[in-house]
């Protein structure tokens, strides 16, 4: 039989090898490690920041909220990237006089928000009103990107240290992060493209100065369809989490406003597996949820949203953002 015509060879114990001065080996090992460390320190200013809370966006939001601890915010916006792009908290504060903060996290889901609100948002900002904007992907129980972000957040060093639940391993990693740039920058150094950009001195994310024109980027659309909207199914996973969020907030005396976020036709026509049927299912589920729990629901679909107010099928541009911010400000004025 072919698989076993010969006996396995067994390597002798302790293959003698050529003995060399151990000191020289150790020196060479240390030299390589130092080289790695020095290289990382040189490249550090050119590299993107490393996720401490699970994503760049979580880092930014959680960091800002920790800084605001004590000051707080009366109104907090929560949701995914649609909310990030949809509400301007400075404009809202100007319009209403109520301090506000946009704590939305790109690619978040109700399950992530459930943990994030209880663990970070309420302890730091102590809001009176929470505005939760939702799009159809947040109700998909099979969304992959959202699941990955949730896992990353739950396992993040930032969360563990903030909650005081860091394991020995996380504390040691935290210490190593502080001491070594190479250890700290591991996640970005692993990415060949980011490394090449850093060596070349290219800024991977140049800041935007003006609104980009409306586009449906093919790669973005493919990612959205195959990861956030894949096997679209509204079940109890995300809806259940939204229910627990509402219960907890109402029990704590925090007012909740749900917003059915505006999107344009390309969203259901090009991204959703079952097109308009998925969008309709989402609207019905959200409306039924709000009615069953007697939660305030702002349905932006009662208005017309032209593509000129969007940068892509789900994200508003600055014009659309200002419009939506005014709408919610009008809606909440009496309640603040």
């Amino acid at each position, binding site marked *: *039989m*072919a*698989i*076993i*015509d*010969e*006996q*396995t*060879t*067994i*390597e002798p*114990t*302790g*293959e*003698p*090898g*050529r003995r*060399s*001065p*151990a000191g*020289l*080996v*150790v*020196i*060479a*090992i*240390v*030299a*390589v*490690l130092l080289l*790695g460390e020095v290289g990382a320190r040189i490249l550090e200013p050119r590299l993107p920041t490393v996720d401490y809370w699970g994503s760049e966006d979580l880092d930014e939001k959680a960091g800002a909220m920790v800084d605001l601890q004590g000051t707080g915010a009366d109104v907090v916006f929560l949701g995914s990237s649609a909310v990030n792009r949809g509400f301007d908290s400075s404009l809202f504060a100007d319009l209403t006089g109520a301090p506000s903060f946009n704590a939305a996290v790109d690619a978040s889901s109700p399950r992530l928000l459930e943990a994030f609100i209880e663990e970070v948002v309420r302890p730091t900002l102590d809001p009176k009103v929470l505005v939760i904007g939702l799009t159809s992907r947040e109700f998909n129980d099979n969304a992959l990107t959202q699941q990955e972000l949730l896992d990353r957040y739950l*396992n993040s060093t930032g969360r563990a240290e903030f909650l005081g639940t860091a394991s*020995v*391993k996380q504390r*040691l*990693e935290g210490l190593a992060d502080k001491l070594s740039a*190479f*250890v700290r920058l*591991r*996640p970005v*150094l*692993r*990415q*060949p*493209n980011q490394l090449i950009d850093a060596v070349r001195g290219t800024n991977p994310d140049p800041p935007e100065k003006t609104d980009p024109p409306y586009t449906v980027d093919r*790669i973005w659309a493919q990612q959205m369809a*195959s990861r956030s909207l894949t096997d679209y199914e509204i079940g109890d996973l995300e809806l259940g989490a939204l229910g627990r969020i509402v219960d907890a907030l109402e029990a704590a005396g925090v007012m909740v406003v749900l917003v059915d976020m505006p999107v344009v036709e390309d969203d259901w026509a090009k991204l959703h597996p079952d097109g308009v049927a998925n969008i309709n299912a989402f609207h019905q589920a959200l409306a039924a949820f709000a009615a069953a729990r007697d939660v305030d629901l702002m349905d932006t679909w009662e208005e017309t949203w032209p593509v000129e107010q969007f940068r892509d099928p789900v994200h508003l541009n600055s014009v659309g953002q200002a419009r939506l911010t005014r709408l919610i400000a009008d809606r909440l004025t009496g309640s603040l």
Partner: protein
Amino acid sequence: MLFNSFTYAIFLPVVFVLYWTVLRKRQNALLLVASYIFYGAWDWRFLGLLILSTTVDFYVGRALATQEDNAARKRLVGLSLLANLGILGFFKYFNFFADSFADVMGRFGLAPSTPALQIILPVGISFYTFQTLAYTIDVYRRKKEAEQSLLDFAVYVAFFPQLVAGPIERAQRLLPQITTPRTSLTYEQVRSGSFLILLGLVRKVVIADSLAPIVNETFRQADTAGAATLMVGIVAFALQIYGDFAGYSDIARGSSRLLGIELMENFNQPYLSRNITHFWRNWHISLSTWLRDYLYIPLGGNRKGIAKKYRNLMLTMLLGGLWHGAAWTFVVWGGLHGLYLVAHRWVPHISEKDHSDPFEWRDLLPAFITFNLVNVTWIFFRAESFSQAFDYLEGLVTLRSGRLVVREAVMLLLALTLSMGLDLIQRNMRSHTALQRLPALVRGFAYGSMILLVILWSGGAPVPFIYFQF
């Protein structure tokens, strides 16, 4: 407990220190406790199965040693087979056969009510079951004396470095090492054992884990991804599963060597094989030799004519496929390898060069062809269903158009270079620890680079080894 976890990084040094110092005279007792902790850390409830398997085979072995009556001896070995294969059959294959039965009946318009049980597959069950079975069969065949110490036998079954994913050791090799006290530890053992652990971590953490997201994403999009992406995905999986399993074996051998016990080599640069026969001599060696000795040869081997030889070969490979997992895709994987092996018998052998000879330029083409033949079988091995496997194959065969993510191709190229580079060094220097023979300065730079790579790819939750699920 995973080899690539922080817990194991604490566990192994603690065991090592206790083993060679205060508990030097109680080494096997320590090994047994450590092994049960290691296994129980995953799910303590399944320790019962391990202990049951150990107890049955220990007492069956002892009874076989004193029993001369052939019929009684057959009954005893039958009891061991029933217990071990019964446990394996229930925990691993019950739902598979129940579902398959229901599926076949459904095709005839019948809808039998088959029970669907929520059965958790105990980790490592396929490995330790085969190891204990081999012991009983060898005692039955009078190739091995029955072990008289329950403690030593329990260590043989549960020895933590190889408990959950092999190598599947034979009693003739491992038991004498366990029954003989390990009185001294040499510098060479520490040096080469530590090196094997580092090498295993490079294969697992740097190669296998870095490719896992590419593989997962590609297979998930088997029906839409372009041919170039699919090609990247399947080569990535070939390297992932090799890095994962060979990495595990290296860490197992290194850990064991630190405890003064030698485990067999389980992989010998299989992707440098010039043909499929060579591949199987060097891929998961402990399983292929097990299948030879306890399945292929008892079926008649190559002694009963050419037709039966090929039948036996096919049966062995089909069952070898099923051993990996309770799914028909694994059976097809084994069947394809069986067909390759049969076909290879028909092809005139161009070169009778020994597999362990250094790899040369002229070996490149046959190795490339063999590698790609193996890759076709990996599609069935990795796919979650036949439809996914056929979607994948269709995309490749029809050269489906689609965008290739350059980053993924670059990652694959880096992993391929590292994996093949390590294998070439090992092959051409004829040793798994070949790097240790390099001049001190070069060796130091090689170790430093390996440590740097492991640090680079570490962090976050450790990724479980693929073969744990088998």
